[in-house]
């Protein structure tokens, strides 16, 4: 795993005492290999290694009494920057009503994650409304309805014929019940589902989301980035949620996302239960990687 490879590199450096430029280059070569093996995008790795190398050749590293520790610290800081800078970037309800929409590939975990977000927002003192915007999948409505019941949040259950009616009805319902945040579930789709991509474009126009988060399966590998770029063209993304982070998959796309899409990873799904969602904290993830 990325963590194991990195750990080996820094332990070796710390044992060395004074470091030469060659030692640093060798260490960064190993870091490069482990990032690539973890499916981090090739171009992202290239620029990351270049910036890190430059930061390592600074006097505070080379002149330090414990240069190995300094290199570890530099890599850690660079990783945090790569991930969007310190601090988590959760949903901030800056005005009411606040509209959130989840999009993504079939089976990535959108519906489950929407339920998790609802519970999280409720615990933070908000009044979310879950909207069953997937009119295609069998029992998508029942699935979200059950999650709403389990989370103890409102569900827009009125049966409608079109997405347009659904969005208008949900908005009216939210205002009547003074619910401050609307959470819209959408059907899974991929970039070659032309009709579904057109539909998504239309939903964005009608719903005018304040946050559009792409839900990505952590076990997807590097394909997550080109997929996100396709979605971004149709539904401008404000961030990502990586699900199934509890799987042993490397999830290297987490490191490439901010660099490639320009928006941060905001949450991670860490299990099948409603409470299994965490804010994505760059410092925590970087620390996990450098060991």
């Amino acid at each position, binding site marked *: 795993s990325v963590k194991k490879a990195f750990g080996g590199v820094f332990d070796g450096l710390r044992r060395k005492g004074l470091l030469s430029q060659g030692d640093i280059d060798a260490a960064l070569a190993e870091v490069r290999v482990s990032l690539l*093996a973890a*499916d981090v995008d090739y171009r992202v790795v290239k620029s990351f290694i270049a910036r890190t190398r430059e930061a390592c050749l600074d006097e505070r590293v080379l002149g330090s009494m414990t240069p190995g520790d300094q290199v570890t610290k530099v890599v850690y800081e660079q990783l945090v920057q790569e991930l969007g800078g310190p601090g988590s970037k959760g949903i901030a309800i800056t005005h009411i009503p606040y509209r959130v929409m989840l999009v993504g*590939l*079939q*089976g*990535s*975990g959108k519906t*489950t994650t929407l*339920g998790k977000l609802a519970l999280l927002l409720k615990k933070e003192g908000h009044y979310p409304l879950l909207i069953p915007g997937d009119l*295609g*999948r*069998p*029992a*998508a409505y*029942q*699935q*979200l*309805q*059950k*999650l709403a019941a*389990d989370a103890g949040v409102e569900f827009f259950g009125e049966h409608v014929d079109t997405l347009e009616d659904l969005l208008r009805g949900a908005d009216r319902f939210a205002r009547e019940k003074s619910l401050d945040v609307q959470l819209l579930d959408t059907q899974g789709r*991929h*970039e*070659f589902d032309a009709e579904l991509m057109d539909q998504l474009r239309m939903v964005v126009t009608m719903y005018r989301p304040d946050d559009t988060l792409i839900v990505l*399966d952590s*076990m*997807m*590998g*590097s*394909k997550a980035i080109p997929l996100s770029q396709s979605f971004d063209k149709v539904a401008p993304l404000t961030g990502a949620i990586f699900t*199934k982070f*509890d*799987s*042993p*998959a*490397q999830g290297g796309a987490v490191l490439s996302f901010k660099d490639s899409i320009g928006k941060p990873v905001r949450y991670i799904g860490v299990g*099948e239960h409603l409470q299994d969602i965490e804010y994505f904290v760059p410092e925590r993830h970087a620390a996990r990687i450098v060991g």
Partner: protein
Amino acid sequence: QERRSRSTAPDLDALEELLIDAGIDVDTTMGILQEVGKSRLLGRPTAEQIITRIRAKLSSVLDLDSTLHVDGSPAVLLVTGVNGAGKTSSVAKLANMLKHQNYKVLLVAADTFRAGAVDQLAILANRVGVPVMRSVEGQDPSSVVFNGLQKAVADRMDVVIIDTAGRLENKKNLISELQKVTRVIEDKFGLPLSETLLVIDATTGENALMQARTFSEAIHISGIILTKVDSGAKGGSIVGIARELKIPVKLVCNGETLLSIKPFDKDDIVNMILL
């Protein structure tokens, strides 16, 4: 002189990228390129020749028996795999396929955990026109399966297809639950498993091989259902799985309608990978 070398020199980096981009895991890709490169002893191969050798290598790795076994009275087919891979949809598609081959099919909704899972399968069963054994939330999947088999025998069904809950391969309790289900079928009820199918999502990266390793270490996996090949992913993970574990792909799913399923075709898949 320069024009000649441009058309004849095989670009190994480009070939490596092609195979990895098709989803073939790094170790298997390296292994294939090494083995193909070794036969360079027979002369300096052109790019076309290398591709031909890769095609032959892939074809031989994937040359496993992909016959779907529907044997038993009733034949019992168990479908498993990680969360969101496409198990429930595949169960419905397979039921539709077998119904049109005049089998009397019973579906068993053994996902007793996830919200809407039983409803989802029930709606699909209704669309296909086959009966479904429902379950209640939190019910032990083994008891659902046992009841399903009893019903199948009583109603003289030809085939029972069991849909199970998604489970990540590193969840030991869920893997034990799966082992218990197979024991209930084969030992407690006494019916042999005709197929135990692992559903693999074509969009999954290197982790697919680990999924196959872990599941096949826990229970016998007789075949793979490869899903979502219509999404642009080529499903190359099945090459490493075939090479290391000798598990054949039996069915390939390429869409969300009941008809988007077909038997594994080795040449189709090799063409898809090399395109």
